């Protein structure tokens, strides 16, 4: 069943929407959550919470890309859960992926990150991503949005690990330059 048909089921308040969503995206959702939470039980709960959340939001929202829509809900839920459970260590487990990329953002003293406008960086990121070739954009998002390992990206894209590593390094450098230029401008 395609995404439009599933969304239509949500809008008709037909509970088979949940079954169809789970059939199509359930496994991918659970896998993505597991990468963030590191716990199979948390990942399974996040999978069902995501579908429940989509069910509640859907009368208002009408997503064009159901998979991406569900992934965003899942990512928020998984990060919340991760933060709660690791409150003392905070980003200790997942720092590797985020840290690589956050080096691209210019440092700011004091409470600059509290004051930053919500969505400001996302807007710049989208502009940057729009300028990338599809392959690079895909590798970038698999790594930094979906938190996939280099090995996973390699098996999904058919690119070598070495190529992915060097590609990511170049993209990070370009992003750092892009953000620096945006800040100046």
């Amino acid at each position, binding site marked *: 069943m395609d995404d439009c048909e599933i969304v239509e089921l949500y809008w008709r308040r037909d509970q088979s929407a949940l079954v169809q969503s789970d059939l199509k995206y359930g496994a991918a959702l659970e896998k993505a959550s597991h990468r963030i939470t590191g716990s199979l039980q948390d990942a399974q709960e996040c999978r069902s919470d995501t579908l429940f959340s989509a069910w509640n939001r859907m009368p208002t929202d009408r997503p064009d*890309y159901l998979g991406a829509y569900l992934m*965003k809900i899942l990512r928020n839920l998984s990060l919340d859960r991760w933060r709660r459970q690791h409150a003392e260590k905070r980003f200790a487990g997942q720092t590797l992926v985020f840290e690589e990329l*956050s080096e691209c953002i210019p440092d700011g003293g004091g409470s600059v990150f509290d004051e930053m406008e919500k969505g400001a960086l996302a807007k710049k990121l989208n502009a940057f991503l729009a300028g990338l070739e599809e392959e690079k954009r895909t590798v970038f*998002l698999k790594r930094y*949005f979906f938190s996939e390992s280099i090995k996973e990206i390699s098996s*999904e894209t058919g*690119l*070598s690990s070495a190529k992915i590593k060097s590609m990511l390094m170049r993209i990070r450098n370009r992003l750092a330059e892009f953000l620096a230029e945006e800040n100046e401008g």
Partner: protein
Amino acid sequence: MSGGTQNDREKKLAYFAEELNGVDDRFLAEAMAKRARGGLRRPVKILLLAALLSVLLTVALLPGALLFRNKGGASATPPNDNLPDNLSLEEAVLALDREDFPTLSEEALPPLLFSGKVVLLWEEDGDEIAFLEVGDETLGKRICASLLSEKERTPVSSPEDSGFRFWVSLGDGRVLSPYLRVGGGVSYGALSDYLPETVPSENMKELLLSALSAA
């Protein structure tokens, strides 16, 4: 002070994590769809490797006198003498039987780099790193001397990354690669990641293959 810096770092990470969720759904859908198409290229790669291996096998089975430098044929000769002359160092190394060489764990790397011995290390496409300690001390010294003294190297004609990496650990923590330009290609206590910039000289190729053949 460090607490403040740590706090800023955490805020930065939290901010970034939130902002990433603002990425356009179109791009996410595109990345998710790639999952289904992925994998098409790997079988092609495997087929190419199989073709290359069969060519090498055919070459190895032909009479040695026609193809190999040594007159005694292929069977009783060291690996580098079994390879046609026109192979690059990369091709020659990859044509060797990988199972003849041990592979390296991350924990074992630092002690190896400071072992006082010359060690050759190589990697293909991010696979486990294979290595070989150069047993012949004189040969080890010649390799080090050549690597350190080469004044000029030939730049690679194509900037494409083949995924092949080759390093020489001098035993004192210094690591060099014949694939990196002189002066810019020395790391200390670690294997540098790189895109090949230069082509190893014939002299260097001979020295390295001699060391590998002694394994």
